[in-house]
């Protein structure tokens, strides 16, 4: 083994570096052929910063370097990186002697996997800091709030810990609480209303005047407040906002019961709900595109809205409104699920609650520190001292269920959508057709989980199932009857399940013909119903398992699409990327139609269908 002297008086030694997965025999990562001249402490520091920034999880639990870290870079950078990564790697290989220098990284002693809600994605950057401070390698898996709550309840989280913006439903359930061994709140962010500055001025919400939930409801009802919000049936922000309105409208000062819900107030509030979606990144993108046009507000956590303001790419800054009777504050409990990982968990919690971490969280993610001493130091980051009265959170499941059911079946703009279903010959492979059938049947009542119930077809909804292969088939149309008539609803569900069960795979893939036909169909329906002044939320959902083989090609489709009515072109097309589907083409269509591509290659098709429901 050769050793090199460095300026800092450290020696560089050689060892063979374990890669995950290992390289095939005979393959080399680097064939550069030069020798080092000088090497000092600063180099390591630069590399460390670079790696921590972009490859926070470059080591697996055994301390092996993840191979994809390298392949994600250009070759020259890759070779630089290897030296750097190895530097980090060597230092984290137990029991590595620790250098006396400041950039020393402690030994990775243990790991902690965390199931987190998607709004915590901005936390990932703290992984290297946790490792440095505690020696614990943290990894994240992300999911929606309801989906993740369900996973913990069923014991299927598959992680050592869970970290949600709000875990009150989980923790008020005896079964849920039994799954949680330890819990600790890490930070805070109230749910607030961000209103475009000009609109806030018009509404007189920009001064010292108190804004009440009643003011918010009134503005929504009269069309002065048109907001984006995540779907109350799948995510915490939307749900908590609904709870806030319900609590304020009930005029009650304590926990609600289902009988207290004032349906008119909830409906008024939802009149202003113009931009639906499931995750904040998607909503932010759409919000930026539509701010000042048909949308002027965004309901989200304070941290998210402050970050949007700080980025400076909005058409207009947002004025943050904190409704006077109360806000719901996310308190981000980090919960231990796997008792074997108690020690690692406690180390991570101690670090996250320490001053450096709390400062980092406040400065980088704009969440309020739970540590009041740190909170004073970063008070300038948050709107001036307002008394934030906390809404009483009702743990009554009936309240939550009835609010969400009412939202879906009564208050929300009903959905009208065409499902374009690929039944070409390739769908015979690997049980693909079976998955598709099951996914559709789930929407029609065959899934009784929490997320299943909230993603099924709702009262007043209209749906067309349009199978296609070499030709575009005839669409079967269904109307879901009113909520009150459950037997009529079940009969329509049975019909839909039956149609889905009879799908057969045969022939080619006339993909663009089918999409075109579906958009045209929705456009016509929209024109008809607008005449009758009935509002529906129109969309097209496209499922395909491969490339187009027949009918028009993509560029013909785009040309013909351009020629469509302006109103038809506002209908979003949601596309599912599955099996051999062509990502580039699907992305192009999503972009042109204001839709979104959902990747079903790595998760079950049925959950992707559920996810799409939150965007419709």
């Amino acid at each position, binding site marked *: 083994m050769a050793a090199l002297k460095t300026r800092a008086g*450290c020696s560089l030694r050689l*060892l063979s570096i374990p890669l995950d997965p290992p390289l095939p025999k005979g393959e080399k990562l680097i064939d550069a052929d030069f020798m080092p001249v000088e090497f000092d402490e600063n180099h390591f520091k630069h590399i460390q910063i670079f790696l921590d920034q972009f490859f926070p999880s470059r080591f697996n639990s055994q301390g092996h370097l993840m191979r994809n870290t390298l392949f994600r870079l250009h070759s020259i950078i890759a070779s630089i990186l290897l030296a750097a990564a190895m530097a980090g790697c060597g230092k984290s290989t137990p029991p590595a002697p620790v250098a006396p220098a400041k950039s020393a990284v402690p030994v990775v002693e243990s790991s902690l996997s965390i199931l987190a809600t998607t709004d915590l994605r901005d936390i990932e950057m703290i992984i290297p800091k946790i490792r440095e401070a505690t020696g614990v390698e943290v990894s994240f898996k992300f999911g929606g709030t309801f989906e993740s709550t369900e996973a913990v309840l069923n014991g299927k989280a598959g992680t050592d810990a869970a970290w949600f913006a709000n875990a009150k439903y989980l923790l008020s359930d005896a079964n849920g609480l039994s799954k949680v061994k330890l819990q600790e709140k890490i930070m805070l962010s109230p749910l607030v209303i961000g209103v475009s500055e000009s609109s806030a001025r018009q509404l007189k919400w920009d001064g010292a005047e108190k804004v009440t939930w009643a003011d918010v409801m009134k503005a929504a009802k009269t069309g002065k407040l048109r907001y984006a919000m995540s779907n109350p049936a799948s995510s915490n922000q939307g749900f908590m906002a609904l709870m806030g309105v319900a609590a304020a409208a009930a005029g009650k*000062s304590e926990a609600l019961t289902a009988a207290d819900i004032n349906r008119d107030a909830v409906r008024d509030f939802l009149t202003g709900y113009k931009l639906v979606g499931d995750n904040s990144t998607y909503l932010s993108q759409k919000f930026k595109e539509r701010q000042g046009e048909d949308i002027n507000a965004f309901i989200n956590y304070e941290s998210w809205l402050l970050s949007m303001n700080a980025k400076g790419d909005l058409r207009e800054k947002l004025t943050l409104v904190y409704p006077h009777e109360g806000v719901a504050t996310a308190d981000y409990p980090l919960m231990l699920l796997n008792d074997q990982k108690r020690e690692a968990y406690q180390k991570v919690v101690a670090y996250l609650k320490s001053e450096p971490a709390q400062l980092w969280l406040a400065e980088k993610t704009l969440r309020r520190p739970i540590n009041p001493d740190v909170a004073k130091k970063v008070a300038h980051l948050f709107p001036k001292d307002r008394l934030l009265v906390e809404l009483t959170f009702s743990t009554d499941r009936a309240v939550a269920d009835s609010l969400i059911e009412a939202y879906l079946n009564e208050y929300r703009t009903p959905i009208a959508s065409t499902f374009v279903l690929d039944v070409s010959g390739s769908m015979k492979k690997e049980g693909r057709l079976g998955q598709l059938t099951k996914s559709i049947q789930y929407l029609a009542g065959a899934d009784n989980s929490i997320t299943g119930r909230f993603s099924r077809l709702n009262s007043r909804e209209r749906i067309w199932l349009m199978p296609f292969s070499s030709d575009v088939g005839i669409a079967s149309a269904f109307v879901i009857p009113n909520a009150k008539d459950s037997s009529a609803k079940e009969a329509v569900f049975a019909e839909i399940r039956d149609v889905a069960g009879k799908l057969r795979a045969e022939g080619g893939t006339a993909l663009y013909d089918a999409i075109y036909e579906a958009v045209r169909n929705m456009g016509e329906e929209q024109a008809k119903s607008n005449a009758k002044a009935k509002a529906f939320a129109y969309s097209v959902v496209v499922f395909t398992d491969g490339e187009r083989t027949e009918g028009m090609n993509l560029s013909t489709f785009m040309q013909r699409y351009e020629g469509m009515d302006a109103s038809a072109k506002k209908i979003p097309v949601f596309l599912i990327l599955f099996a051999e589907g062509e990502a580039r083409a699907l992305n192009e269509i999503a972009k042109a139609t204001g839709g979104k591509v959902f990747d079903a290659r790595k998760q079950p098709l049925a959950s992707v269908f559920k996810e799409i429901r939150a965007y419709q």
Partner: protein
Amino acid sequence: MFDEQDCKSMNKNLKNALITVALLTALGGGLFYSTLDRKQETASRTAIADETRRAAQMVELSGLIAVDVEPFFKDERVVKLLYENNFRANVIRIGSREMAGRVAKDTAPDFFMPSGVVAGNQISEAAKKAGYTTATYSPYFTPLVIASWVPIAKILAANKIAAPVGEGGSKDNIYDVDLVGLTNLMLSKKRWRDLAQSQAYEVSRSVLVSTTDVRKSNSAAMYLALTSYAINGSEVISNMESARKIALQVADLYKRQGYQESYVNGNFDDYVGIGIGKTPLAFIYENQLVGYAIGRKAVDKEMVLMYPKPTIFNKVIVVTMREKAKPFAELLSSNPQLQAIATEYGFRTSIAAALPEAANKVGLVIKPRIVDVIDPPSYEIMAEMIDVIAKEMKN
């Protein structure tokens, strides 16, 4: 939340710095750096002999402890003191109410350290049934208090529910609060804005003390003991019939709070972290607030300590399950150094002046002596009342 653009510019900036390092890559394989001169420790013979003797005498103990004493056991000075007295305690934190469920034959830990006599009694009962001979100690204790805020204390004082303690009370932020008056105020569903002189906290929330969930946590059970005493005409409940009746009334004081934390630190975190908007009144152990102030060596001028009149003591209990744990429990109760450390965590000990002095050093004034104290009802009555409330809360 970084986007691609940040990524690209970062990339560029670092590229130059990184090129220099590229030179190293020719080496292939991997590398790490280490200090050349690692210090070798050589122990003297006497030290080795010392260690050997100690190892032979060392008593290893396993314990399940409540969250209140976890920081105490984690304190290095405590570990060291125990070690010098030939004890090594391997402790795991669980909920006090879960402990009785861990008294299985032969597999129980050497000792339990629950919060409160109720949980202590539960453990002893279960242990007896499982064939253990137990002993119970109570080395430290703390009164239950209501942590509050200056504006709230002033409103309650204006409404004759609270009064500053002595002449310096309003300056020192310590108040007595009339338990019967407060309980009645809460039962009558009064809102803050309905109270006289409530301009500083003119909100529509009901006047309610924030507690933990009584089905899961000891401090909430202490709240039950106090409020049931107030409703029962300032008498400790002694018969089942009135216990059931009064429990139904108290159930409302929990239910109306909505979501409640299941552990007492969660409630305290809300108090210090979210503050007056969420927890104008928080029912906590005195040691939480005092330990917090001593730990950070400062007092928040807006925080107020309210002593319910009467209040109740919560004892930290040690239940020993095996003979070898007894000397350990005695040590915790009698060793002056251990007691002094417990004081730093806000506990009161047999030396009455110790805690007020320690608190004074960081500018916190606490009641030196608490005389108006009641006992909780019997174990059976408490259990029955908790059962009644648990059923109510499911409805």
